C-alpha cells in the first residue's frame, strides 16, 4: 500500500470499472478516465499551493532587489554601507546606513543579555529540576508571554519600564534603547527557553545517570554533562534569538525613538533599521523617489542579516548535533 501511495496510483480502485468478470454491469462509479483526469487536476492544484511558498520567496527577493538596485544607481553601495550619517529625510541627504545598523545591534545586544541567561536558566529549571506538574503549569504561561502582540510590549516599555528607568537614572531620555531592549528580551525569552529546553531534553538519561553514579550533584550533572551535550541546540537558540531581536519592529518603533546615531549610550534614543522602515511608512512617501527606495535598501540589509543568521543556526544544529543511539 505504501507503494501505491508513493506512485499516486491505486490498483484496487482502477479495477472497479474494468473488471473482466462483470462486463454488462453498469457501474455507478464515474468513468475511470474522468476520475483519472480529476485526480491529475487535483494533484496540479495542490502542487501550486505548495509552490506559493517559492513564489513568496521569489517575490521578496525581486521586490527588495529591484528597488535596492535602483537605489544604488543614485547612492554608491560603498557610501551606503560605510557612511555614518543617515539623513534621507532631511534637506542635506546622506545615506550612510551604519547608524541604523548600530542602533539595531545595540538593542539586540541588550535583548540578548536579558533573554539568554534568563531563558537558559528557565530551560534548565524546566528540563532538569521541575516536577512534571510544575512544568505543565509553567509552559503555557511562557506560551502566553510569546503570544502577546509586540505593540503591547511597546506600550509596556514606554509607559512602564521607561518611567522606572528614569527614576533610577534621571538622565534617561523618554525614548531610550535600554527600555526597548529589556522588554524585547522578555519577548524573545519564551523562544530562547523553549528551544534550549528541547535541546536539553533530548540529552539521553543514561548520560545523566552515569554522572550521578560517579557521585556528581545535580548541579554538576547539569553544568558539566547536560549543558555541554546540548550546546549546539543552545547556540542555535541564541542565534535565532538574535535574529528575532534584529527583526523586531514595534517595540523599538514605540520605545527607542527615531535618532539614527552611532554610539553605545543605552539611556539615549537610537533608531533601528525596522523603526526607520515604520517611520517612513507612516509618512506618505511618493513612489519612485529616493526616500521610497531607502525602505527597500534597508529592508534588503535586514533580510540578509536575519537570513544569514537563520541559515547559520540551522547549520549548527545539523553539523554539531550529538547523535546518541
Amino acid at each position: 500500500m505504501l507503494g501505491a501511495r508513493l506512485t499516486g496510483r491505486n490498483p484496487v480502485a482502477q479495477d472497479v470499472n474494468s473488471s473482466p468478470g462483470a462486463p454488462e454491469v453498469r457501474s455507478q462509479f464515474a468513468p475511470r478516465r474522468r476520475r483519472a483526469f480529476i485526480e491529475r487536476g487535483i494533484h496540479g492544484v495542490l502542487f501550486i499551493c505548495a509552490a506559493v511558498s517559492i513564489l513568496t520567496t521569489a517575490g521578496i527577493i525581486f521586490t527588495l532587489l529591484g528597488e535596492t538596485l535602483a537605489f544604488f544607481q543614485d547612492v554608491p553601495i560603498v557610501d551606503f554601507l560605510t557612511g555614518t550619517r543617515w539623513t534621507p529625510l532631511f534637506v542635506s541627504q546622506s545615506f550612510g546606513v551604519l547608524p541604523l545598523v548600530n542602533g539595531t545591534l545595540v538593542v539586540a545586544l541588550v535583548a540578548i543579555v536579558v533573554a539568554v541567561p534568563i531563558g537558559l536558566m528557565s530551560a534548565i529549571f524546566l528540563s532538569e529540576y521541575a516536577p512534571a506538574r510544575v512544568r505543565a503549569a509553567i509552559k503555557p504561561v511562557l506560551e502566553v508571554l510569546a503570544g502577546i502582540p509586540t505593540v503591547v510590549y511597546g506600550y509596556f516599555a514606554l509607559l512602564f519600564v521607561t518611567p522606572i528607568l528614569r527614576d533610577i537614572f534621571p538622565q534617561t531620555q523618554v525614548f531610550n534603547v535600554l527600555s526597548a531592549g529589556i522588554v524585547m528580551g522578555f519577548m524573545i525569552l519564551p523562544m530562547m527557553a523553549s528551544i534550549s529546553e528541547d535541546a536539553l531534553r533530548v540529552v539521553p538519561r543514561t548520560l545523566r545517570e552515569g554522572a550521578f553514579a560517579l557521585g556528581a550533584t545535580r548541579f554538576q550533572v547539569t553544568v558539566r554533562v547536560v549543558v555541554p551535550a546540548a550546546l549546539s541546540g543552545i547556540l542555535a537558540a541564541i542565534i535565532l534569538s538574535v535574529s528575532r531581536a534584529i527583526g523586531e519592529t514595534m517595540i523599538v518603533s514605540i520605545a527607542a525613538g527615531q535618532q539614527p546615531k552611532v554610539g553605545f549610550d543605552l539611556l539615549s534614543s537610537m533608531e533601528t533599521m525596522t523603526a526607520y522602515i515604520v517611520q517612513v511608512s507612516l509618512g506618505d512617501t511618493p513612489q519612485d523617489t529616493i526616500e521610497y527606495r531607502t525602505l527597500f535598501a534597508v529592508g534588503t540589509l535586514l533580510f540578509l542579516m536575519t537570513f544569514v543568521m537563520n541559515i547559520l543556526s540551522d547549520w549548527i544544529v545539523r553539523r554539531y548535533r550529538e547523535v546518541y543511539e
Partner: protein
Amino acid sequence: MRQETGTRWRPRIRQRKAIGRGFAALTIVSTLLGIAMLVALLVDVFGDGAAQVDGHFLTSYPSRFPEDAGLRSALLGTLWLLVLTAVIAFPLGVGAAIYLEEYAPDTWLTRFIQLNIANLAGVPSVVYGLLGLGLFVRWFALGRSLIAGAMTMALLILPLIIVASREAIRAVPDGQREASYALGATKWQTVFRTVLPAAGGGILTGTILALARAIGETAPLITIGALTYIAFDPSGPMDLFTVLPIQIFNWVSLPQEGFSELAAGGIVILLIVLLLANSIALFVRFRLQRRFD
C-alpha cells in the same frame, strides 16, 4: 572533578550541596522572572485601560478628543482582515500541506519547497510588509486596501498553517488510508473523505492560532500603508482600513494627555480578542481532534 595523582580527593559534600541549592534557586528565580514580567504587564495594562472599555469606546470612531475616541473602525477592520486572510491562507496552506504529506515525491524540488517554508517562517514580519508594498499595493495596484493587507498577512502566516497542518495529517495512521483504498476510493477521495476529516481538528487549531498571530501583527500593515485614522466602516475588500494594533500604536505615539489610557483600553480589547481566539482553538482541539491509539 579532575584530580592529580598524589592529592587526596576531598568530597566537600556540604559545599557541593550548597552550590547545588544556590543554582537550583537561581533557575527558579529566572523562571519566576518571566512570569513576573507577564503579571506586571497585564496588571499595568488592565489598570490603565479597563476603565476605558465601555459601549461608547467600542462603537465610536477615533477622534482627536480622547474622551470621544473609540475603536469602532479598528475593530471592524480587524474583523474584515481576519476573514479575508483566512479565506486566502486556509485553502493555500492546507493544500500545500496535503501536497507535501500525501503527494510530493522525494525530489530536490520537494526538499527545496520544504527548506523554503522553514526559511520563510524566519523572515521578519516587516519584510513581508515591504513585499506587500512592492507587490500588492504598487504592482497589482490594489492600493492600501483591505485585500492588499489580507494577502500580505496570508503570506506571513502561511508557513505556520502549513507546518501545523502537516503535523495533523502526518498523525493520521496509514491504516485509515489503506482501509479507504481497500473500499475502492481514489487517492483524492481518500485524502478528502478520510485523511482530512481525521486531521481536521489539528488543522483548524493550527489555523486559528496562526490567525491569532495575524490579529496582533502591526508592522507589515503599517509598511503597506494602512492608515491610522479611519472614520468610516469598511464595507468591502477594496476599502481603506485600520486595525486594532495600528490604532493602539497611533494612540501610544500621541503625546497629548488621555491617549495613553485609550491605548491601554485598546490593548485590553486586543487581548480579549486574542484570548477568545485561543479559547476557540483549545475548544476545537479537544472536541475535534481524533485520537488513534
